[in-house]
């Protein structure tokens, strides 16, 4: 897999009153992710080639990925593949990069979701809906100690588009 072939489809930037180390910890540990990411547990083996998993509250693997670049606490690139039948075969790999930079007393966190082929807006609507909720909640958690309770409807537009492509969705 050559990551140079991937082009950004979604970019989301958020500034957080925190340190790069704490933001890194929040992005890579279950202790934090369960609070801001709908109960999902991030299990990351933080080395290139290591496993990157997001486990649903019922214990099932929801995101099945691999660490591609790992430069703590500055940059983490992972494959972010939703564990639904035929998804990777039909859409290719989804690449997610977190870049963490100091900006004065705050931290700038930039998320990029990239793909190696054009992806329909209907499918991208899932990430466009999800990332702002996840990262808004992460920011609140680090700044106030409390994550947000964001009730999200299932991303119907994305699910319908995936189903039409023959991808198994819940």
């Amino acid at each position, binding site marked *: 897999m050559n990551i140079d072939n991937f082009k950004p489809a979604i970019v989301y930037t*958020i*500034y957080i009153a925190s340190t790069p180390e704490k933001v890194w910890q929040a992005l890579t540990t279950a202790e934090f992710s369960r609070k801001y990411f709908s109960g999902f547990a991030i299990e990351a083996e933080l080395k290139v080639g290591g496993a990157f998993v997001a486990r649903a509250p019922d214990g099932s693997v929801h995101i099945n990925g691999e660490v591609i670049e790992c430069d703590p606490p500055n940059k983490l690139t992972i494959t972010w593949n939703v564990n639904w039948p035929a998804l990777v075969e039909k859409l290719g790999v989804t690449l997610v990069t977190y870049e963490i930079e100091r*900006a*004065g007393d*705050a931290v700038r966190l930039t998320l990029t979701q990239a793909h190696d082929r054009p992806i329909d807006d209907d499918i991208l609507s899932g990430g466009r809906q999800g990332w702002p909720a996840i990262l808004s909640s992460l920011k*609140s958690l680090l*700044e106030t100690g409390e994550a947000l*309770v964001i*009730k999200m409807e299932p991303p119907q537009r994305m699910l319908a588009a995936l189903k039409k492509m023959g991808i198994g969705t819940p």
Partner: protein
Amino acid sequence: MRKPEFVYVTYIETTPEKLWEALTSSEFSKRYWFGTELKTDWKVGSPFALVMNGTTMDTGEILEADRPRRLSYSFQHARDDEMRNERPTKVVFNLEPHGKLVKLTLTHEDFEDGSKLLDGISRGWPAILSSLKSMLESGTALAIPPSALGIEGFE
């Protein structure tokens, strides 16, 4: 390809009324918006200006003011020679109750192709709205130095 626009969504633990107040009052904007004051009476058709430390940065006109749901103004940059010659753009804030939170959606649209202003505001809005969220949730806006945004001439 999507048309050239910038969309930013964030969720804030506050009420639509408080968020409206923060988006429309200089007392608040000075704290989270790099010292910027909002010069307008917020009536549809009235002139609008963003004044940062005495310098008018951007001007426009109020297009919609449906408190506390939807706020819109036209937006033209006033300072940088290249950007101020671009055609006026449009800013829309949508405030939606979302459980105990407010979902804030900013849409900034109607840019020319290859707009330099679009690059600038794409760097600016995430910092401004992140700081606004911090101010409403924790009481303290963020201390982000303008130079950290990487916008030419904004330091």
